């Protein structure tokens, strides 16, 4: 009885792709540049994991929502993942994807001093989405994301890393590249959108 939920067929999963954008220090400008290039009718969902102070996170979502022509919202527990929307993960929570394509929040221990942690989201999203996940790793001053992208690679997702030479903080892109050996795409800020759009 207990297990019927876990063994049911997977045919109810929606088929659009999901972009997981991960960054830390120096990532806002890169994010803004990427989001400004998007069209409102894009056929994907975008989830943004940034290391931010609790105080400024909500303002960022509101600011972006005004500035770009795609709907931007802050994730709440249980939010449905739908295409054509940008989801900002709130500061202080890890964000995961459930089998039913809803977003979950969690307050478990920080990972690499971070909550939200890119590693946590990358692992969880790739677990359910497999090759439908596109991971973007940009500027950041720690190694968050480096473990997560290994899962993405193993589960056949696409990985795009910001060119470390132009990143404000190189550690995060460098750590991801080092962890993978070979990365699908290493591109500068102004080419992130073009590269991602190929997979939409």
């Amino acid at each position, binding site marked *: 009885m207990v297990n019927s939920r*876990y063994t049911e067929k997977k045919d109810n999963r929606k088929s659009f792709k999901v972009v997981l954008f991960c960054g830390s220090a120096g990532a806002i400008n890169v994010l803004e540049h990427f989001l400004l290039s998007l069209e409102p009718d894009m056929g994907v969902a975008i989830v943004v994991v940034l290391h931010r102070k609790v105080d400024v996170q909500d303002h960022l979502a509101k600011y972006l929502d005004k500035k770009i022509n795609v709907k931007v919202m802050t994730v709440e*527990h249980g939010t449905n993942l739908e295409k054509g929307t940008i989801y900002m993960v709130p500061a202080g929570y890890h964000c995961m994807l459930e089998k039913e394509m809803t977003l979950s929040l969690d*307050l478990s221990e920080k990972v690499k001093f971070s909550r939200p942690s890119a590693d946590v989201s990358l692992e969880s999203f790739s677990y359910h989405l497999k090759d439908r996940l596109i991971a973007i790793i940009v500027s950041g001053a720690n190694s968050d994301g480096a*473990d997560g992208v290994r899962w993405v690679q193993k589960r056949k997702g696409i990985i795009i890393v910001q060119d470390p030479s132009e990143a404000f903080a190189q550690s995060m892109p460098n750590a991801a590249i080092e*962890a993978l050996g070979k990365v699908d795409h290493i591109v500068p800020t102004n080419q992130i959108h073009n590269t991602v759009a190929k997979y939409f």
Partner: protein
Amino acid sequence: MEALLEITETELADFIQITNNLYGLDFSGYAQESLRRRVLRLMKLNTCDSFTSFKYVLANHGVSDDYLLNEITVNTTEMFRDFEVFKFLKEEVFSILETYPRINIWHAGCSTGEEPLSLAILLKEQGLLKRSVQYCTDINSEALSKAKKGIYELKEIKEYSKNYLRSGGEFSLSDYYVAHYGKIKMNKELGQNMLFSKHNLVNGTSFNQMQVIMCRNVFIYLTSEQQNRVLRLFVDSLAPRGFLILGAKESAVFSPILNELEIINGKLKIYRKKR
């Protein structure tokens, strides 16, 4: 580089079954992704490189039921977390509570006790502490025993002090604790009307009529069926016109039970029983 540790959906279902059969624990109502991560963490803690080897540990009673429960449940909490909630309580709710001869408050999932203490401080400043009884319950025995002690790490206090003042605190947080050896101990007076007890929300029953129920960041670990059950329990435990406060990022708006509540502040997830 660390090996990638994985657990399949079938193995997770296996975990739920085994812990139920052998340890009498019921994790079937836990949110899936969170549970999957917690089990992976348990496997790492027990140096198991696969679920098969972890299953061996479980089957041979290599761990205790208390250990499993305490490690699976998440205890992260802070003093004055989401200070706007506390500010709202102080500015909008306390004046209503003042009209009661006795104020019953239930902290459902109180974890290590930071929230009851935060509220106790504000109640004291309003002259309401002596009239209040704070029922603090949690399923995690380890967290509860920390809550009873009221001893915390000093390093968090700077953030707490800032949020105490933003909540409308009238003095200084340092008036309420003594610091020593890198720890702080909260004044005993704050805990004088706190009752601690182990309580499982999922199969627990109502035990008093509450003016306020605070249950922040518990729903995020429960499936929607369990959320409904717990919400029912809360509505049944609230006194007429009592307040329910959920976590700031928890929207339980899909539940029909919410029709019995009025939304007082949607952003802060503060509800009030209609009658």
